[in-house]
């Protein structure tokens, strides 16, 4: 028995071993913290982070599934493990783009690394929470570290002062609105606790099984959904998103738009299914409205953006809409579509933002749509990968984005929610307007300015791998479909949805 196990067994927490991935991430974060304090050696910091994440990643595969630990506060089931795999892997990929970007912009800080690790830890707690208490801790750990990450574009270079200012503004806005979200979720938890006398998801669900849900419970649920919608950037609670995404350093935008969002979605699904299965009609209706609004507002405003990074921020709001539309159909198929979509969203969004962060390193690149003119000529490889990501987000086969939308369609029509399916269709067509614009300026215009692209091997590999995954999953989505179907079956197995 190892020392830690002995200590733990002495404390008497059963199944403590399922926490290994979290413990490894935590320890890595502390090591990086001290390295940053003592040496500031960049290679060492990066290497430690990468090794720590790799070890944590591998450790997931040694965990026996379905254990509850910390006295019922923390669940490590296949759902949690599945998402932890993706969260760690995507963090790892995004961290791969950190160093070159930060060094190029002369804003390198070791803090980026350990804050990211703490945020990741928070997300791992989120997907494993089976209790409002753990849920809150995870969500806040993630949120607070992300506020700081957004504001960390701190530069001494005069020409970048503008970015610097934007980053501060973004962080401040994000902090205030995110804080409001936290407050709303706190209220929600207070109401839910008041109405049910428990923090536990399963116990809460029992309150609604035999009897009409009390007013307190309903208010709690509505507030909870509002709070979560705010964190997931669904309209009308999206106001922080474009500024935060635009202001943050691009790799951090990538981290927020992909990893944090995916974790939030995973959390949303678990809390809805496990704590409120018997009022699914109420929350599914609420999500249908939020989804429709997100699709409409996100797409229409994205259409007007001239800055591609900002356009992607709005398009991510639209994607929140496509994803949450699946919640409007509270069936196994709907949840499977939801799970499938959030996983595939990882690949296309990481790819798109990684491309931006790679391009942004060249002198004078502003992410304005005009900068993309003639990119296919100047850098055919990056242009081709961006083309793949754009068509995937648009949902054109054979890219995987099509499969994501197809799943949502199946679910919506299967549940007779035609109106939302039609909204989804029309909004997809609108989105063609801005995704196609990126492709057409890349391929159909002559370059306006000459950029000196210095895209390194890591970035190229990331772009290539993501584009290939988007295509392969588009042609062979079966494996992920079965994961998604199995997980959704598992989640609803005990609640009879």
């Amino acid at each position, binding site marked *: 028995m190892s020392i830690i196990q002995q200590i733990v067994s002495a404390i008497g927490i059963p199944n403590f071993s399922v926490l290994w991935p979290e413990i490894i991430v935590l320890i890595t974060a502390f090591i990086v913290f001290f390295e940053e304090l003592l040496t500031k050696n960049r290679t060492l910091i990066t290497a430690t982070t990468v090794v720590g994440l790799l070890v944590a990643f591998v450790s997931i595969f040694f965990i026996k599934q379905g254990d509850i630990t910390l006295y019922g506060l923390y669940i490590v089931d296949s759902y949690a493990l599945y998402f932890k795999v993706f969260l760690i892997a995507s963090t790892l990929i995004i961290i791969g783009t950190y160093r070159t970007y930060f060094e190029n912009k002369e804003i390198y800080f070791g803090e980026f690394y350990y804050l990211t690790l703490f945020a990741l830890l928070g997300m791992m707690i989120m997907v494993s929470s089976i209790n409002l208490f753990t849920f809150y801790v995870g969500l806040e750990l993630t949120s607070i570290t992300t506020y700081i990450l957004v504001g960390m574009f701190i530069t001494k270079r005069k020409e970048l002062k503008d970015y610097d200012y934007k980053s501060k503004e973004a962080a401040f806005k994000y902090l205030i609105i995110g804080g409001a979200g936290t407050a709303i979720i706190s209220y929600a938890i207070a109401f839910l606790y008041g109405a049910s006398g428990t923090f536990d998801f399963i116990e809460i669900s029992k309150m609604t099984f035999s009897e009409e849900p009390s007013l307190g419970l309903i208010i709690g649920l509505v507030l909870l959904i509002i709070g979560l919608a705010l964190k997931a950037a669904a309209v009308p609670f999206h106001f922080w998103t474009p500024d935060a995404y635009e202001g943050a350093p691009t790799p951090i935008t990538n981290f927020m738009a992909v990893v944090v969002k995916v974790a939030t979605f995973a959390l949303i699904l678990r809390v809805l299914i496990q704590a409120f299965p018997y009022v699914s009609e109420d929350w599914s209706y609420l999500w249908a409205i939020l989804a429709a609004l997100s699709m409409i507002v996100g797409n229409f405003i994205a259409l007007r953006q001239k800055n591609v990074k900002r356009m992607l921020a709005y398009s991510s709001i639209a994607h929140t809409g496509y994803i949450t539309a699946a919640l409007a159909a509270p069936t196994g198929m709907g949840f*499977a579509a939801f799970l499938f979509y959030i996983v595939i969203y990882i690949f296309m969004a990481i790819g798109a933002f990684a491309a931006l962060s790679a391009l942004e390193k060249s002198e004078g690149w502003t992410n304005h749509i005009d900068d993309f003119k003639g990119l*296919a000529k100047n850098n*055919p490889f990056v242009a081709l990968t961006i*083309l793949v990501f754009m*068509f995937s987000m648009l949902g*054109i*086969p*054979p890219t995987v984005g*099509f499969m994501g939308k*197809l799943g949502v*369609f*199946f679910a919506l*029509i*299967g549940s007779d929610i*035609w109106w939302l*399916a*039609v909204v989804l*269709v029309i909004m*997809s*067509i609108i989105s*063609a*307007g801005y995704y*196609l614009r990126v*492709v*057409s300026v890349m*391929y*159909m*215009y002559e370059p306006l300015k000459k950029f000196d692209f210095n895209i390194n091997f890591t970035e190229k590999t990331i772009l290539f791998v993501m584009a290939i995954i988007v295509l392969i999953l588009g042609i*062979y*989505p*079966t494996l992920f*479909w*079965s994961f998604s*179907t199995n997980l959704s079956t598992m989640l609803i197995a005990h609640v009879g949805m």
Partner: protein
Amino acid sequence: MTFEFEAANIPWITISILIPLIAAGVLFFLDKRFAKPISIIVSAIVFVISTYMLFAYDYSSYKIQFYEKYSWIPQFGISYEVGVDALSLTMFWLTALAFLLSFIWSVNIKKRVKEYFIAFLVLEAACIGVFVSWDMVWFYIFWEAMLIPMFLIIGVWGYAERIYAATKFFIYTFFGSLFLLIGVIGMYVYQYFHYGKLSTSYFDLVNTNLPFGLEIVFFLLLALGFAIKVPMWPFHTWLPAAHVQAPTAGSVILAAVLLKMGTYGFVRFSLPWFPEASKYFIPVMFTLGVIAIIYTAAMALAQQHIKRIIAYSSVSHMGFVTLGTFALNVEGMNGAIITMISHGLTSAALFFAAGWIYERSHSYMLKDLGGMAKYVPVFATLFMISAMASVGLPGLSGFVGEFLALLGTFKTNVWFAALAGIALVVGAGYTLRLYHKTMFMEELVDKNIIHKWKNTHDMTTSEFLAFIPLVILMFVIGIYPKWWIDLINTTSISILSKFIGG
């Protein structure tokens, strides 16, 4: 309906789809000088395969032949399922032919050569896929995947307003096809709830008996997707723009292959799936067909731009296909299918001709042309034959199809047949005007222009090789249509079995 299948010994269809894709992938990493030979060889192989299949196809009874099926997403009942009947096969063959000739024609492309051929190879794979897929999800995948290369082909290699045209083409088609997708999923879900069967296979969906109201709804959803692709009036406005701006080979593929997807969709899906709705909508479809024939023929008559004339004439010819399809009898159906093939040949030839003229004169406008015939006899002859085939001169391919389509329409509704018949005259009008204004009228043309023609080369070898097979086939179909009718007859009967009880 019960279907019989004849499994493929060698997966010819899959091979035909994969070869262009693999070639496109390989080309990406090769030097651009390999682009032309590889593309031509690959498309020639595909054409040989399709021709082999055409001859090996057993048309004595209705069977899905060269059939392959592999499970793909079992959770949703989606399989990779390909095979051909005579309709699919002729369209597949036409596609293979059009691409081979387009590649041969394109040897003098100079702008971004590698990307050009890659885009066309991907497009070829997708187009073939559309015609041979029997699983609706795969059908849709090919149907949509085709948009990406076509968008780039128009947008990158097109003329001045190419970006506008490419975007318009993309958004229009995307709009229609998403509704088509909703319709298909609706059918699928209905089938699941009422028959407990989870399958996107055509052969399962065709046996779903829908209530009349739903038939109407799904018919309209699918028809929107198909009508835009055909294009039927009033959904045709993307077509002239796309044709005018597209490079020559792009126009050829658009006219010869892409437009057929819409009519193919009507024949393949709308009629067998929604027999009651199809009957119900006969007056609407006839009206739209006749409007398309007359209105766009009149539009063609008023154009100055060669490609616009041919583009509008395409819409007009597609009107005959619509009439033949919705005549709901065997003559009409045979006519529709033969018109599809014939239009594939003639429109390809006419767009090649337009491209040839532009290469020499750098203008598509009638006012800049004229009096060419004497100086370029070979071209003038081939162009003449193509134009006559397009008009529907007996002995050439256009006549057989349109005659049968009109005959079928006549059996269903005399008035519509009469109206469409009148429009044939207008059709002769604009085609003769096109030919007359470009080739003759030497006496009215500027001396400089005539001087230019005197120094013009007649057809180059690649142009001739691309052009001549089309002309030969126009004669083959025109003079001996029996073979084609034999080929497609059992298929037509089978498609119409819900109407004629075959």
